[in-house]
């Protein structure tokens, strides 16, 4: 049932628990093609769990996932990647003791050699890593041989994103791309996200900062206590409204423990 106009990702009634902790109660949402969707919500609302399920790292307890209109049971990270979904995690999944080039090609290494005797094609990996870093416009990096441990937070984030883009991913999941970053570096990453949108990538951006989200995203979803409680176009909402919603929920929870003050979908 793959339809040409189908959303890049659509999920229906996803649920996920970890022992006694319920991370996702009932999540239904969608990401259109070429769209940038902001996913916001408090700590523990289930944002990271949702991202991990969509990236194939964890499996939902129940619910359906549709990629480009087709129902898919995401089996593994490799499976999700084969469908063009790639994730830049909050912890970036970079290896501090490996070079930039090796990190860019982690688990997708280029090799040369004969039959079962294969060795790393390091020169080729360095060349391609350099190209894609130049393409994406990271200008502060001195060498792709540099160990990631030597890089700044913004540089690391940019390299993690460059890695996903380089791998041919069309659907990018960015988990807290602006966490713990200075204003200048944050701006660099926001520019990067705009460039990616311009080149036709679909993206889910998980973030805390409502202003940043509204700046780059087309649409915003608010996740509260494992449910989507708001789905609005960025042009139709504001940072104040989002802040009010989160604060209202906090006040309601204080009065009535476990209470869920969801301001339901506008669409």
């Amino acid at each position, binding site marked *: 049932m793959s339809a040409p106009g189908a959303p890049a990702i659509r999920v229906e009634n996803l649920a996920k628990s970890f022992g006694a902790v319920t991370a996702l109660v009932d999540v239904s949402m969608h990401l259109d093609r070429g769209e940038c969707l902001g996913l916001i919500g408090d700590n523990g609302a289930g944002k990271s769990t949702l991202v991990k399920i969509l990236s194939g790292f964890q499996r939902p307890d129940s619910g359906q996932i549709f990629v480009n209109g087709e129902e898919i049971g995401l089996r593994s990270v490799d499976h999700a990647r084969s469908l063009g979904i790639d994730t830049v*995690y909050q912890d970036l999944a970079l*290896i501090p*003791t490996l070079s930039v080039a090796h990190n860019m090609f982690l*688990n997708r290494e280029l090799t040369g050699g004969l039959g079962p005797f294969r060795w790393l094609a390091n020169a080729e990996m360095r060349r391609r890593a350099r190209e894609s870093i130049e393409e994406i416009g990271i200008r502060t990096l001195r*060498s*792709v041989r540099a*160990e990631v441990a*030597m890089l700044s937070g913004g540089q690391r984030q940019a390299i993690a994103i460059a890695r996903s883009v380089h791998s041919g991913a069309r659907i990018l999941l960015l988990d807290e791309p602006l966490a713990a970053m200075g204003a200048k570096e944050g701006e660099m990453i926001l520019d990067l996200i705009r460039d990616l949108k311009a080149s036709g990538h679909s993206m889910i951006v998980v973030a805390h900062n409502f202003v940043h989200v509204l700046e780059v995203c087309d649409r915003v979803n608010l996740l509260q206590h494992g449910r989507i409680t708001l789905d609005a176009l960025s042009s139709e909402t504001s940072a104040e409204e989002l802040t009010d919603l989160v604060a209202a929920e906090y006040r309601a929870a204080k009065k009535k423990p476990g209470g869920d003050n969801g301001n339901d979908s506008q669409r």
Partner: protein
Amino acid sequence: MATAGAEVPTPERRAGFGWRVAGAFIRRREASILVVAVLLSVYFSLENEAFYSSDNAKNIAETMAPIALIAAGEVMLLICGEIDLAVGRVYALAPAIVYVVSSEEQHGYPIWVGMIAALVVSGCVGLTNGVITTFLRVPSFITTLGMLFLLNGITLHLLAGTQVFMPGGETFQKIFGSQPDAYAFFFNSTFWWALGLVLAVQFVLTWTRWGLHTIATGGNLIGAAEAGVNVRWIKIGNFILANLLAGFAGILDSTRITTIVPLQGGPDIMFLAVAGAVIGGTSLFGGSGSVIGAFIGVAVLIILRTGFSIIGVSAFTFELILGIAIIASMIVNVQVARLRNLGRLQ
């Protein structure tokens, strides 16, 4: 060095001159430890010319060879964030298996059958350690501590607690033991096996996906898993590799001395191997290391021990100095890792 888009250097990351010198020294850890090995050799040769003799070179070479083999396996394990304390017992178990399978008194199969059986058993020990550590989530320190006692019990049972002759004919002795008539460069087969395998493991570490994934697993376990690296299999595979190397080292040594001693090796040889690995620049926190560095690190330990005994320093003093050397290199090791994480060393 090639640069990518280097218009703007990052000034806040620029390390001072002292840090850069320290960084260069540490990045070339193999080279600096090699300098130490050469300086020690020169010192001992000047002190006593007996040190500078082909007999002593052979002695050092054959003492260090099995330890260097075990160290190569430990390096791979330390890099992926694990350790195996029981490899010294596998070193004793493997030749005991060869004895049970191939000796005339026991089953009398051809020697190569015994050797394959011993290596299969060694590999299975590694597999067991790896599965208990990764799937049952017992820290490898504990898993292999238990295995250390368990294997010793098995070896003692197999050999009834006594030492026996190593089976194997003249050809087997020449290939895996010593060549009394013609020492190539004064060394025996054991040394060349060790050198060859150390270079092979170093190749695997730096030039293959397996090596890269081993570094990734130890450098950032969750990150490597998120990137799709099968971190459990990487760890299990390195446990198997380390135990195969230890078993092979035991067979080499028993063949060379033509005797199997149930209590040979043990924690002693394992700790020397780990110490050599750390002296040679392998991080105790995982994520980086060098097999060749470990080879030279083990050489330094054996040069120290042999040198001290030749110039007449007592074994007590050797132990004391060895202890200081190990603690000092551990301090360097830990501090280097700390400074690296702070981005001070470039």
